[in-house]
């Protein structure tokens, strides 16, 4: 506890860095996963490779990706961009499937009604499909956010400073306090992100909370 109080500054800085490393890729990944997911649904034979392929990305150990990336894309070895890009890849890996599932969950008759009314292409996607997929996509984004917070900490092994640095520091000195603080901070950060996503998705989907007024009788009565 005293260690915690004495290092508030440091923890704050780490948490901020950590949050950036987790959130920026989340947003970029989401922005990329949506068109990829759309494509996967649009072109039937692309679906399996895209969904399974991006899923396989996820089994690549993050440490390896963090380190190998510079060799592949020519960034500097200690460039945090490596971490950002790796995290974006992981986010895409999680979200493509989610986006596809979310789009699958859009009721066929709604899609149909939209087409029948003269919506086409991108406009229908933006006005109808995407909003209706939000609840499923949001669930996936929650998973990705929590997972990102967790994975980012591994970057401490290659000297990228964030909450994970507390783990290596504590470990090097066989000192539990920083590790515990780091763990708690990570969980809190994940929960805060989770909460933000939940709130955002609720704001975006007011209709999901709109339920029939109490009792079938009332609603049925209203029809008469």
């Amino acid at each position: 506890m005293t260690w915690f109080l004495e290092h508030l500054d440091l923890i704050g800085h780490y948490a901020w860095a950590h949050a950036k490393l987790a959130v920026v890729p989340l947003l970029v990944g989401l922005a990329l996963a949506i068109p990829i997911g759309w494509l996967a649904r649009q072109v039937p034979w692309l679906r399996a490779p895209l969904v399974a392929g991006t899923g396989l990305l996820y089994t690549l150990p993050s440490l390896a990706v963090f380190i190998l990336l510079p060799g592949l894309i020519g960034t500097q070895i200690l460039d945090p961009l490596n971490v950002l890009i790796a995290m974006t890849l992981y986010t895409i890996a999680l979200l493509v499937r989610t986006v596809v599932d979310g789009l699958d969950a859009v009721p066929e008759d709604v899609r149909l009604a939209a087409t029948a009314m003269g919506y086409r292409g991108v406009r229908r996607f933006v006005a109808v499909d995407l909003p209706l997929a939000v609840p499923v996509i949001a669930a996936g984004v929650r998973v990705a956010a929590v997972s990102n917070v967790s994975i980012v900490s591994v970057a401490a092994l290659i000297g990228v400073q964030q909450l994970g640095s507390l783990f290596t520091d504590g470990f090097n000195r066989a000192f539990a306090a920083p590790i515990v603080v780091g763990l708690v901070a990570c969980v809190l950060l994940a929960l805060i992100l989770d909460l933000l996503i939940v709130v955002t998705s609720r704001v975006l989907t007011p209709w999901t909370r709109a339920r029939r007024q109490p009792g079938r009788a009332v609603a049925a009565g209203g029809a008469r």
Partner: protein
Amino acid sequence: ACGGTNGTPLDQPTDGAPAATAAAGSITVGSANFPESELLMNIYAGALQAKGVNVTTRPNIGSRETYIPALKDGSINLVPEYTGVLMQYFDQSATATAPDEVYAALQQHVPDGLKVLAKAEAEDKDSVVVTRETATQHNLKTIADLAPVAGDMVLGGPPEWRTRETGVPGLKRVYDLTFKEFRPLDTAGPLTVQALKNGQVQAANLFTTDPNVAANDFVALEDPKSLFAAQNIVPLIAADAATDQVTQTLDAVSAALTTENLAAAVKEVVIDRKDSAAVADAFLTTHELK
């Protein structure tokens, strides 16, 4: 990986490119992934900052095999090093062992774009360590004494020891030791200490300044054939970052570093669990380097 509240800036670049080159008056100091290196990094950083240099720190980068490339590609500009191992890193065939010879050889082999500044008197050698029990049982004093028993022993050390000249291959070449197995652990960190205590390994690589050796009553075996060359602390720096001001500052630091005061400082960090930066700061104050 503790930045201090004073001296070491924390604005570690997570969202932009790192200082690619040392612009006038700005420098990035890195460290290896063990506390002493980080402490030295903080000492260098604090000293430079006191002179008005704009300093960024990158602690815990990893092993030499990682941070030297980082130094070359400009991710960092300065890192605390040890003369012996560094010499062997740059020249596998180097044989020098005495401090000045090593330093001279090192200077010769440092590749273009990098340079080493003045070495300190302070030394922190690699050593092969065994428990007091093992030492007594097999009557071990030097590494050479291990020869008859090595075949039954597991050697623990950092992963890079498997291939590094000052690791398994060197022990074989110089002392003709063949261990039953080499077990990769961490860089003289808690895993190594723990594994030695548990008996998972019977001999392990620790540093001579490591306070854990004394704390656990381990025995550091002597190195009569000087496998582990002199290991004076030395700043390894990107040539274009080595301005006069930086050079003078770091030379002053090196002049102040002794094996004893370094060991004491490391103990404060590892055993007393003080912040690396704070200990560095105290060191600088004591030695009037800031």
